[in-house]
């Protein structure tokens, strides 16, 4: 029966059009544009990536680079259809376990949301409903997808609260969000998102609002849970420390596009895009000897309505004049493979970038 459900008419057409990928999650040429009075905000403009079960992808970038918009796009939260017209213009393909989500029936996506894919939000206080107890909210999330009575669901909620490390879960299940501390709320939200054993977990800045000691607890929890449930995890953050802790692969976003993507090791030790260099140079690091000065990226992030022509990073790039013929200001660079499973979008040649990194950047970090 469920099989029948999955291949609804709307889904079938697209499956024929382009072959279903083998990866668990595949995003192809995702574009999310918001029409506004001032122009079209191109929050995400052509993003591709893949993710397997049991692996963690870290998406890094500054505010406004399109990280959160991407995650909301995957969850299908931009296309809330009941308001008549779509607020966001979305194109591209998002394949989750063989199903294309963007063209799928909204009811079908709704069934997947929460069960196959779940999300942890940045601010647990605004993501939890203040009028209902934590238990109520977890029970609701469970019963939407499972036909069980309230008692069973409640047992499941207590079990999940216990699993995420909330003390006295059988009592705290009846607490309201305001009775929890920030770290406990975040744990409760993780419990809620994992209650249906989702295969894809998206964590959007899960620790940004938390203190460093609590952050360590939560990162540890996410790592343990992933190991236990074998889910695919996307972690979105601006903190390179957090991605280094969790991610197998890293995707660096700038101005709505991916500028560099590769295994964590490569991105940290052999970054091939000047923006990634800038991010690494901007961070004071506890694990290194004290440096006198940080090496910031000059200028500020671009407007997504009027992206600079050519490479979006060119006005801030110290090496914009290295490639010949002003190409950085006229031609938008595409992602090129710079090593095994490692891509970067830059006009400089491989050799130039390698030289600049090893001779000019790396020694200063």
């Amino acid at each position, binding site marked *: 029966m469920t099989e029948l459900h999955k291949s609804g008419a709307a889904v079938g057409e697209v499956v024929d059009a382009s072959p279903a990928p083998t990866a668990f999650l595949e995003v192809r040429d995702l574009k999310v544009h918001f029409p506004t009075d001032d122009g079209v905000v191109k929050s995400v403009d052509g993003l591709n990536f893949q993710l397997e079960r049991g692996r963690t992808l870290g998406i890094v970038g500054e505010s406004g680079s399109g990280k959160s918009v991407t995650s909301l796009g995957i969850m299908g939260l931009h296309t809330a259809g009941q308001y008549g017209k779509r607020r966001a213009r979305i194109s591209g393909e998002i394949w989750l376990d063989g199903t294309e989500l963007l063209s799928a029936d909204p009811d079908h996506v709704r069934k997947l949301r929460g069960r196959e894919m779940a999300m942890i939000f940045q601010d647990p206080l605004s993501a939890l409903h203040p009028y209902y107890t934590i238990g109520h909210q977890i029970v609701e999330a469970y019963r939407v997808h499972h036909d069980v009575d309230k008692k069973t669901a409640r047992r499941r909620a207590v079990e999940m609260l216990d699993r995420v490390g909330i003390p006295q879960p059988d009592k705290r299940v009846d607490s309201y969000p305001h009775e929890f501390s920030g770290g406990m709320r975040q744990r409760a939200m993780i419990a809620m998102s994992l209650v249906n054993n989702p295969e894809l977990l998206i964590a959007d800045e899960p620790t940004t609002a938390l203190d460093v000691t609590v952050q360590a*607890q939560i990162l540890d929890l996410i790592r343990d849970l992933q190991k236990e449930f074998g889910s695919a995890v996307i972690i979105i953050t601006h903190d390179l420390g957090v991605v280094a802790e969790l991610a197998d692969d890293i995707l660096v976003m700038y101005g709505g596009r991916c500028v560099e993507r590769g295994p964590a090791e490569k991105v940290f030790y052999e970054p091939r895009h000047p923006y990634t260099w800038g991010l690494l140079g901007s961070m004071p690091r506890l694990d290194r000897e004290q440096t006198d000065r940080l090496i910031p990226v000059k200028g500020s992030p671009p407007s997504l309505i009027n992206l600079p022509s050519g490479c979006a990073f060119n006005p801030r790039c110290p090496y914009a004049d290295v490639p010949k013929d002003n190409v950085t200001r006229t031609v938008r660079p595409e992602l090129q493979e710079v090593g095994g499973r490692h891509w970067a979008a830059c006009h400089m040649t491989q050799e130039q970038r390698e030289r600049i990194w090893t001779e000019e950047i790396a020694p200063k970090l």
Partner: protein
Amino acid sequence: MNQKSTGTQGAAAGDVLLKVNGLQKHFPIRKGMLQRQVGAVKAVDGIDFEVRSGETLGVVGESGCGKSTMGRLITRLLEPTAGTVEFEGRDITHLGVSGMRPMRRDVQMIFQDPYSSLNPRHTIGTIVGAPFRLQGVTPEGGIKKEVQRLLEVVGLNPEHYNRYPHEFSGGQRQRIGIARALALSPKLVIADEPVSALDVSIQAQVVNLLDDLQDELGLTYVIIAHDLSVVRHVSDRIAVMYLGKIVELADRSSLYRAPMHPYTKALLSAVPIPDPRRRSAKSERILLKGDVPSPIAPPSGCRFHTRCWKATRICTTQEPPLIELKPGQRVACHHPENAEDQAPQDTQLLSAAREAIELVPVGRDEAPAGQGAAAAEPATGSEGAAAEGTASGE
């Protein structure tokens, strides 16, 4: 003792500029129709420190430890409950508004949120020029010229004099706040989380700017922040606060190399290190359990004893004093790390202490494989295959 304030070059580098003694701030909790006081939030509960001219004191701690309240007390934006604040040898603890006004020239503040700390209805010329008007100072060449000079100093275009705050980005707004703080060439600048609202790349710009201004203008900073790596980068000395108390006060290298207070140690080990290779290294992380207790009823004795893995009986009853255990390193702990035990007779660990922390190996690949569900996915065996799969097709 009474140092005459003679312009900006008043105190020589190294002199004590600010001295804080037993500073307390208790916010009353009132209840009922008669608004009787039923308790108090002990936000700052007896702290002592000094700031020397020309140095940067960093203050770190988790949210709720009282670091921002401390900043507001020494700038006299809040009235202390007890204790004294001395600036250049002069007691300013209970000066009134008019008494404080001349001091305001010397003590300025940079706020965390560049969106709410600038009046949206004023142009930046008005905002940065406000200190001159309030203090009745007319700089050489007029206010406008001086404001434009200040804008240039902080890296903004002086022609933007007539623009409004909304026309600027977060980093630029923070620069406006800095220009305003610098207008009257203060001696002491208190910066409360000056970069935490900014993006990483912008953070670095502002940190460098603060650095340069200190070199050029001989400023003294008290920088309050929760980010330990930023604090290490900017500070000469660092105070670590926990529940309204300073638990450790030391120069930068001692604190980061050999922290003595267990809390400092835990705090440092919790910082995620941007180095994926560290994950498989054999380092261990101290994971504190639970949350910070409420400052309404802080634990007896040492406030950290409820979460400390070294806590013994003495910790529950006697509050450890902040004493100098090594030149330049003051610690309030009965059983410090990297130093001689202060209460060696008391060795019986509290039962809570044994469960207080979890030492986790940093690196998930360390743990024994095949534990439950993890094995269900192609995690270990077909690592290569999974890796290949993750690579995207063009």
